[in-house]
C-alpha cells in the first residue's frame, strides 16, 4: 500500500525524473547491474552487481582472476558485456563507446601501465585534459595563438601535479624511459588531469614504494574529501582498510559481499574465497 502511494505521488515522480534528467546528485554515482562476460570458455564476470556511492572510495578486492579488471573494463567501455546494464549519473552507458564514456567524466587507469611511451611525462598529462580547443583540425590550423592560453594553463596544472607526486625532475623524460613505479604515478596523474567525476583505479599502488604509496593514499583521501568518487581495485588490504569504505569482494566473477573491511573479515564465505585462498 505504501509503495503504491509513493509510486502514484506525482511530486516524487517528477522529482525523480528531474534528478535523472539534470544529473542531480543522487547517492549512487554508478550502478552496474547483473553484468555477464565470458572469453571463449572462461566466464570472467558472472552476474556481478555493484553500486558505487558518491563521495567515497569504494574498494574492490578479490583473488587473482576474480574478474575485477574485466568489470572495470566493461564499466569504462573498453569491452562490452554480454548482458547487464551500466548506469552512470542516471544515464545508461552500456552501449556507449569508451571515449564517449570518458567524455562524461568516467575515467579509469589500467592495471598494466599504459603510458604514451614517446610522449614526455608532461605531455602524457597534457593530452588527458578535456575540451582542448587545439585538438580540432580548425583549432590546430588556426595556430598557436588560438590555443596557447589554454595550453599554458594546462601546463601549469600539470606541473602542480608533478610537484605533488615528486615527478618534476622527470617532466621532459619520455615515458618509455621511466621505472615501473614512475609509470604508475604518470598513470594516476594523467587520470587526474582528465578532471574525472568518477575515477576507476586498477591497482594504483602496485609497484609503488610503500612510503610513496602512503602519500598517494593521502592524496586520494584529499581528493575524496573534495568530492571525487572513486572505485579502487587493490590487493594491499592495509591500504584498502585505510581509505576504502565500502569494500566489495569478488570471486569467480560474482560479488560475494559488501561492507566495511572489518565486517567482511568476519564473513565465512569471504574468508574462504579470499583471505585464506
Amino acid at each position: 500500500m505504501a509503495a503504491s502511494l509513493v509510486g502514484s505521488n506525482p511530486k516524487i515522480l517528477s522529482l525523480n525524473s528531474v534528478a535523472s534528467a539534470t544529473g542531480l546528485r543522487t547517492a549512487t554515482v554508478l550502478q552496474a547491474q547483473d553484468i555477464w562476460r565470458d572469453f571463449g570458455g572462461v566466464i570472467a564476470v558472472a552476474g556481478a552487481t555493484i553500486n558505487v556511492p558518491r563521495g567515497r572510495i569504494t574498494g574492490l578486492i578479490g583473488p587473482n582472476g576474480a574478474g575485477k579488471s574485466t568489470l572495470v573494463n566493461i564499466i569504462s567501455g573498453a569491452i562490452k558485456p554480454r548482458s547487464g546494464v551500466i548506469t552512470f549519473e542516471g544515464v545508461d552507458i552500456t552501449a556507449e563507446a569508451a571515449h564517449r564514456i570518458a567524455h562524461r567524466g568516467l575515467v579509469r587507469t589500467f592495471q598494466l601501465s599504459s603510458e604514451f611511451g614517446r610522449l614526455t611525462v608532461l605531455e602524457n598529462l597534457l593530452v588527458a585534459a578535456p575540451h582542448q580547443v587545439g585538438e580540432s583540425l580548425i583549432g590546430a590550423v588556426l595556430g598557436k595563438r588560438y590555443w596557447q592560453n589554454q595550453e599554458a594553463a594546462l601546463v601549469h596544472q600539470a606541473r602542480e601535479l608533478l610537484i605533488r607526486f615528486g615527478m618534476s625532475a622527470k617532466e621532459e623524460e619520455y615515458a618509455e624511459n621511466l621505472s615501473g613505479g614512475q609509470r604508475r604515478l604518470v598513470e594516476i596523474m594523467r587520470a587526474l588531469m582528465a578532471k574525472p567525476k568518477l575515477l576507476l583505479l586498477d591497482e594504483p599502488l602496485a609497484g609503488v614504494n610503500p612510503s610513496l604509496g602512503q602519500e598517494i593514499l593521502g592524496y586520494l583521501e584529499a581528493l575524496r574529501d573534495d568530492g571525487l568518487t572513486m572505485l579502487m581495485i587493490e590487493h594491499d588490504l592495509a591500504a584498502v582498510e585505510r581509505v576504502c569504505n565500502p569494500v566489495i569482494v569478488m570471486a569467480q566473477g560474482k560479488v560475494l559481499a559488501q561492507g566495511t573491511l572489518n565486517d567482511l573479515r568476519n564473513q565465512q564465505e569471504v574468508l574462504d574465497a579470499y583471505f585464506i585462498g
Partner: protein
Amino acid sequence: MSSAFQFYVTTLLIYAGVDILAAWGLNLQFGTAGLLSFAFIVFQAAGAYTAGVLALGPQTDNGGYQHYIGGYALPFPIPILAAMAVGAVIAVPIGLIALRRLRSDYQAVALLVVSIIASSIATNETELFNGAAGISLVPHPLADQFGGDLLTYQWFYVGFTAAVCLVAYLIVHRVTHSPLGRAFRAMRDNEQAASALAKDITGLRLLAFAIGGALGALSGAILVLFIGTWAPSAWLYPETFVLLAAIIVGGTNNSLGTVVGVLLVPIGFAEGSRFLPEIGHPGLIDAGQWIAIGLMLLIFLWFRPQGILPERKHRYANDGRLVTVLDELAGWLRRSLALIQRSSR
C-alpha cells in the same frame, strides 16, 4: 648553365617537391598517427587523375582516343584544389574499411590489398580510367602565359611547387605541434589508453588519413600537371615503400627529416641517377635501385632506427609555452656569447 642542364635541374626540383609533399602526407599518417598506410600511393594516384581529367578538355578532343570522367577544361588552380578534396574524401571509405576495428598489423594488410585492388581496377577499366594506357596530353597550367618559352615555364613551375611546399609545411607543422598532433601521437603510442581519455580513435584515424590523403593527392596533382600524363602503372604499391623508406631514413615524425630522407632516397637514389627530362616515366624504379633502397632502409633500421633527424622532443618553457627550434637556437647563441665574453675578459 646550359639549357639541357637547367631542364634537368628544374625537373629534379619539381620531382623533389612532389615527393616531399607526398612524404609529409604519409609521415602524418604513419609517423605521427601510427597508421601503417600501405595504400598511400592510391591517394597520389587519385589526386593526379582528378587534376588531370579536370584540366583536360572533353573526351572528343585530340580525336577522342582516350576515355575518362570529366573533361571540363577547368582553369588553374581548380583541378589542384579538387584533387585535394578527392584525396581527403576517399580517405573516409578507405579508412572505414581498413582502420575502424582492425589491429595495426591487420590494417597494414588490408591497406596493401586496397592498393592492389585500386591499381587493378584502374588498369582494367578502360571507360573510366582509359585502362593501362592512362591519360595523356594534360595541359600545363598557365602555360599560355609563357608564350612557348619552355625553360622559363620550368622555372616558374619550380617556384610554384616550392610555394605549395612552403604552405604545406606551415600547415603540417601547425598540426603536428598542436594539441591535435599530441592526440595523434598518443593514439599511436597506446590506442586503448587514448580512448579511455576521451579521444575518439576512429575520428582521429580518419582525420589523419584525410589530411595525409589530401597532401598525397596534392602531390599527384602537381606531378600530373607537370608531366602531362597519368598511367596506373606509375602508382603501384611499391611506390609507397619508397616514400616509407624516405621517412624512416630521414627521421620518422620529423618534417625536416622527411625532406632529408626524400632528397636521399627517391631523389638521390632513384631519380637523380637516372632521370632525364625527356624520359617522363615517374615511378619506374629498376631492380638495382630497389636493392639499393632496400639495403639503405635495412641499414637504418639496424643502426639508426630514429633516422637522420630524430623526432623532436616537445619541451615547455617556464611560462608554459612550447619551446620552438628558434627558441633553442637563440638559447644556444646566448650561451655561446656568454662563454665568449667570459673568456675574453
